[in-house]
């Protein structure tokens, strides 16, 4: 074997060993590098890869919570959830797709669009997933499929809960509605909390109390393989159903209010003075909220937008109107309080018009020829404008504003609804800020609620409630409380005072009540037509707000004025006077007179809320208050 010379052998050994040493070193270095890489992956980057591995493995499937119901104060359902059915197919469980589709088409209507959508899913998604063939099956269709289901391999009927408003448009402006989650919604909500959800509260209470109503999404953590097939459920976090909301709203009174308004454009707000509970919140015309739940048809939406009566506008919350003579209810108290301005015993002689000193401009009284000599009591009962012109001038704009502000005018009442309008309580600064001068005439007009002052029906009701509650203004609340549907644990919304009207003499409330009651219950009162047969005592004030400016020397002619330029009819009231339970404000746009149009609506709502239904005509009317004798002395 070893036939090579020893010299060569040694040389070869030397060469080989040198080369072997080099390779040995290279092998060692590469091994260390490899090890370092593995240590890096498993130790330094462990968290990163552990997370990725978990993300690979576990997929959370959202479980939708049932949305909370909305009920009125007596438990009548205003918003509920209704099962809707979807016909799904799991392709891998189907024996013969063509046969199955033919069979299903015999049972329910499947349009070409349905079929196209289904084919699209079929080509794009794994065969073990649910693919929708038809949505929104009605009860009958669902039943027809359900019966045949055992023979329809791969077909599945899946129920989903959908929002439904059983009373249609009733209180729609208070309730709002849920609808499809839009791009804008996605920008403001926590997307992860709504995964897999399609609907969200858009308006009204549905929007305001979305968090309570929605509940919490549940999750099923399923292990999935690389193809997305769910293999087993690792963990299930049950969804927490939304809270059931109990409203202060009285559905019957709400219906009465809406029916009383009828086809007219208007609003009724009724609240409980002692708590601020909103008992009725009507704005007409209404519309059916159910149309919005699954995205309204463009044509139907267009029709709502183009409707000249603008049903989508929430008049009770966002309608801003001149209060007209209803403001006299509040200014009457200012008169009593101010004392120094116009002595309350003093009589004003009303000639039917008022001129500012040194001005030829005539501020007319609604009654041609005037009311003659009137006290504050007479001026309120008969709604004498001239008295209040003088009062306003005597008080001046700052005192008027400062006096009206605590009643909640000029700012949002804080009722639990989104996007409330604040109305307008003009001040000298407000006008100055807009580069406008405050004319003495502005002050005069303010005395009868005309000019720049604007109120919402919500504010008027809250203001009337403040009077009824003797100066303590309560924050208006639609939500009475909410209940956890599982534990039945109930949480009440507390009644919270918002502000107290500062008053020098508490007896002025009694005087004001008396004056307002006489508006309704004495035969000279402007609202006598609703008071003469009322079985309880009502304190109220009518109002007629001018829409069109009447030229100097001309008279307003209702018949000759186009409907949209006619006066708004207003009425504010509370009852029973002795222990007020309800304060109400009614506005009928272009309705004409407060006394003839708005007051009867208020009476119906009051009857419903106080008597539980229309007054029995045979029932004896409440005894007449003592006719206003000579005004009493201060002491």
């Amino acid at each position, binding site marked *: *074997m*070893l036939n*090579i010379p020893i010299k*060569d052998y040694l*040389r*070869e050994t030397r*060469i*080989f*060993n040198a*080369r*072997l040493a080099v*390779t*040995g070193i290279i*092998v060692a270095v*590469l*091994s260390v590098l*490899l*090890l370092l*890489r*593995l*240590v890096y*992956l*498993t*130790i330094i*980057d*462990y968290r*990163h*890869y*552990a997370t*990725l*591995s*978990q993300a*690979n*493995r576990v997929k959370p499937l959202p479980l939708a919570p049932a949305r909370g119901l909305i009920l009125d104060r007596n438990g009548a359902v205003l918003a509920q959830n209704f099962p809707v059915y979807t016909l799904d197919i799991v392709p891998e469980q189907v024996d013969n797709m063509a046969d199955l589709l033919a069979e299903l088409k015999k049972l329910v209507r499947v349009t070409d669009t349905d079929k196209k959508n289904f084919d699209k899913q079929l080509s794009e998604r794994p065969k073990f997933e649910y693919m929708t063939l038809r949505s929104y099956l009605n009860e009958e269709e669902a039943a027809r499929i359900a019966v045949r289901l055992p023979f329809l391999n791969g077909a599945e009927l899946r129920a989903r809960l959908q929002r439904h408003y059983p009373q249609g448009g009733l209180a729609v402006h208070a309730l709002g509605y849920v609808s499809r989650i839009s791009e804008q919604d996605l920008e403001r909500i926590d997307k992860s909390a709504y995964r897999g959800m399609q609907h969200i509260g858009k308006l009204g209470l549905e929007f305001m109390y979305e968090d309570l109503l929605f509940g919490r999404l549940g999750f099923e953590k399923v*292990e*999935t*393989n*690389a*193809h997305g097939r769910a*293999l087993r459920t690792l963990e299930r976090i049950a969804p927490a159903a939304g809270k059931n909301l109990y409203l202060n709203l009285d559905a019957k009174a709400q219906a009465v209010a809406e029916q009383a308004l009828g086809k007219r454009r208007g609003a009724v707000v009724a609240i409980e003075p002692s708590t601020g509970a909103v008992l009725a919140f009507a704005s007409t015309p209404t519309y059916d909220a159910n149309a919005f739940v699954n995205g309204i048809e463009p044509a139907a939406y267009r029709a709502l937008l183009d409707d000249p009566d603008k049903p989508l506008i929430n008049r009770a919350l966002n309608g801003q109107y001149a209060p007209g003579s209803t403001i006299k209810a509040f200014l009457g108290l200012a008169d009593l309080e101010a004392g120094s301005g116009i002595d309350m015993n003093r009589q004003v002689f009303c000639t039917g018009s008022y001129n500012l000193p040194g001005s030829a401009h005539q501020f007319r009284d609604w009654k041609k020829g005037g009311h003659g000599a009137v006290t504050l009591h007479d001026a309120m009962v008969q709604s004498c404008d001239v008295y209040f012109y003088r009062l306003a001038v005597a008080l001046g704009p700052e005192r008027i504003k400062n006096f009206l502000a605590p009643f909640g005018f000029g700012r949002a009442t804080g009722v639990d609804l989104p996007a409330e309008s604040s109305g307008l309580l003009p001040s000298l600064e407000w006008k100055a800020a807009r580069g406008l001068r405050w004319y003495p005439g502005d002050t005069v007009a303010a005395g009868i609620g005309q000019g720049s002052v604007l109120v919402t029906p919500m504010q008027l009701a809250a203001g009337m409630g403040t009077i009824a509650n003797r100066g303590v203004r309560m924050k208006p609340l639609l939500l009475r409380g909410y209940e956890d549907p599982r534990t039945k644990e109930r949480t009440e919304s507390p009644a919270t005072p918002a502000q107290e009207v500062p008053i020098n003499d508490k007896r002025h409330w009694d005087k004001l009540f008396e004056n307002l009651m006489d508006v309704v219950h004495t035969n000279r009162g402007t609202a006598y037509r609703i008071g003469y047969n009322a079985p309880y005592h009502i304190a109220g004030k009518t109002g007629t707000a001018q829409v069109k400016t009447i030229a100097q020397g001309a008279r307003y002619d209702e018949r000759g004025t186009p409907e949209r330029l006619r006066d708004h009819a207003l009425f504010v009231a509370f009852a029973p006077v002795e222990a007020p339970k309800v304060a109400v404000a009614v506005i009928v746009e272009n309705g004409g007179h407060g006394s003839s149009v708005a007051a009867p609506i208020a009476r119906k709502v009051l009857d419903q809320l106080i008597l539980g239904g229309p007054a029995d005509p045979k029932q004896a009317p409440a005894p007449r208050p003592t006719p206003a004798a000579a005004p009493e002395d201060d002491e």
Partner: protein
Amino acid sequence: MNRKLLLIDKPLLYALMFLAALSLAVLYSASAKDASVTVQHFLRIVLGFGVLIGFAQMRPELLERIAPWIFGVGLVLLIAVLGVGSISKGAQRWLGLGPLRFQPSEIMKLGVPLMLAWYLARGGLPPSWLRIGVALLVTAVPAAMIAKQPDLGTALLVAASGLFVLFLAGLPKRLMLIAVVAVAAAAPVLWSHMHDYQRNRVLTLFDPEADPLGTGYHTIQSMIALGSGGFYGKGWLNSSQAHLEYLPESSTDFIFAVLGEEFGLIGILLVITLYGFIAGRALLIAFYAQDSFTRLLAGGLALGFFLQFFVNIGMVAGILPVVGVPLPMMSYGGSSILSLMAGFGMLISIQTHRKIVEL
């Protein structure tokens, strides 16, 4: 002279058996608890050890004599596979012989170092320019044929095993320098001749996230498997990456990722230590070998073994491109185990048939 009944190198044998046992455990998990796969692997290992013992008893002189023949047969089979080989996963690598199917390229992993060790030893070290030229040709022809199948991984291993032998034989430094320059110059040409998938694999190495569901997918998933194993691992049979089918080729080329995920860094260290020990032992055998043929053969086999596990683990760990190189012993696949065991048999034969007492 050793006169034992069975000639064997115990440290090497025990290390290989330990590795084989471990491979069964990992493969059982990686194959989604497929007992038949595991049993088949076990049978191949048993057969492999038989082959190993067989080669170990063969005297190196005999090995030297049949070396050119083994190469020759291998070459003929390679030609055959290009002609009539069966296609699997887009590559023509397999040759059916009755019920048996095997990859002739695996024979060349042994054939090339055998042939070169024989050829270069005959001429004495360092080799002459002519012999270097012939040796390069002997390496390049089978490597090119294997690359044509296409099986880039094995082609690289075969080419490398030839170059290792040449290097150990004393390839002039000047030539190596020229070669490095030449390769650098030829790289663009080589690049233009590569298949698209081969190019993508190289590119993927630099940025696996660029195509996470395409060419980067293997690397990303194997790194997730390794990294999420952490220090202690998720425990045997708990590789979610493999069981949920995120990790492709989990029982063949990417089995190391399963090991890492289930046994963590501890398992990785154990296996790498075993591989390192085996490679080291093989290099030691080369060092102790007493003539040029056995030295060159042992060195070539040792380095070939090292390169194979280094490339495989490097690829699983995301530092080398994805080339189809199985992890020796661990990966499921018959031809690979047999050629591996035959190689170790030759190494043991070299170790146990030394004639001269230490100088």
